[in-house]
């Protein structure tokens, strides 16, 4: 259980660093997915530890939400790519003050 949690934390940290470091919007998005997966792993580990299925159900709902989020997020990336021909997160600075 503790090793699963450790792996989950390592993956979450890698995802967080990736979100901060990478500049390709697609890869940033993949790093968000990695973080969601890491939390899912923690859910499964805790469900195993408690001997109940609630954690697995939470992981399943996270998966559904992630699927919806990916659909909308990729549509946004496509729209941005269409309007400005780039998917670098540095180029999207229209609304900054």
């Amino acid at each position, binding site marked *: *259980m503790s*090793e*699963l*949690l450790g*792996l989950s934390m*390592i*993956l*979450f*940290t*890698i*995802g*967080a*660093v*990736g979100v*901060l*470091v990478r500049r*390709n919007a*697609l*890869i940033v*998005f*993949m790093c968000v*997915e*990695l973080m969601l*997966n890491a939390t*899912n*792993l923690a859910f*499964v*580990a805790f*469900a*195993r*530890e408690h*001997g*109940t*299925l609630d954690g*697995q*159900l939470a*992981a*399943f*709902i996270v*998966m*559904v*939400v*992630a*699927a*919806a989020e*990916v*659909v*909308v997020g*990729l*549509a*946004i*990336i*496509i*729209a941005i*790519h269409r309007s400005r*021909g*780039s*998917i*670098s997160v540095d*180029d999207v600075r229209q609304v900054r003050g």
Partner: protein
Amino acid sequence: MRSGARASKPPVPSRLGRWATSHLRERGCPVTAFGVVAPIVVIAALGLLFARKAVHAALALAVVMIGLAVLYAANGAPFLFAVQIIVYTGAIMMLFLFVVMLVGVESGPDAVSEPIPGQRVAAAFVGLAFGAMLVIGVAQVVSNGFSVPKAAVEDDNVEGLAALMFGPYVLAFQFTAALLVTAVLGAMVLAHQERLTPQETQAEAAARRLREFAEDGRHPGNAPTPGVYARHNAVDAPALLPDGTPLESSVPGSLVRRGQVVPPPVTRGPGNSPAKRPAGDKEGEHRE
């Protein structure tokens, strides 16, 4: 029986070995599956950080997801194993790859340049500090609590999940349904492109071509084919005019706009006229 035989086998168990075997025995935890899968998953996740191209990052993420699916299967979550493979690896990663293809494999920002100086180092530092905080927090929680007696996870995993989902958690289930419908509508609205001008009919196109031919002498027929058969085996190589200059109208316009057109060959020069190129080149001999 078997585990007892295994535990009595090591003659002089080291401290680590004793710890590992007792760990194995008392938890019944699939440490072996974890030991195989976890390094692969971590290395693939690091690949997400260091990959230059979005395609490589997507493949690394697929490896991570399959590895996590194996861990789910080994930790009493067979339903999540199937869902992880089907939803994440099957649907989400395919969607990612579709978008990578749509926006162009090469079109991402280059990984080298850094618009804000020092941003990458600072971000990596902040991320690692965040990870350390996470480790400390979770370790505190785990070491303090958890006197929960460990019951066996039921064998009827799917039935148990269904009973939970349609019992106490039915409201969350309904909300995910609403969320999915909203996401579908949102994706359609965001990715849909409204047609601003009416589509040109065939007769109108023919009339326009002949009008352009009459006005500026533009050829009304097909555009010239790319230089595929002459020097290259893909359509991104422009055809060469008799004086050796590339003909830009012979490659698709989207490639020209992306700057993905193969440059003309270096065989041109004062002493090496392209008009004297060997005829053998035309016989489908592909040169890189």
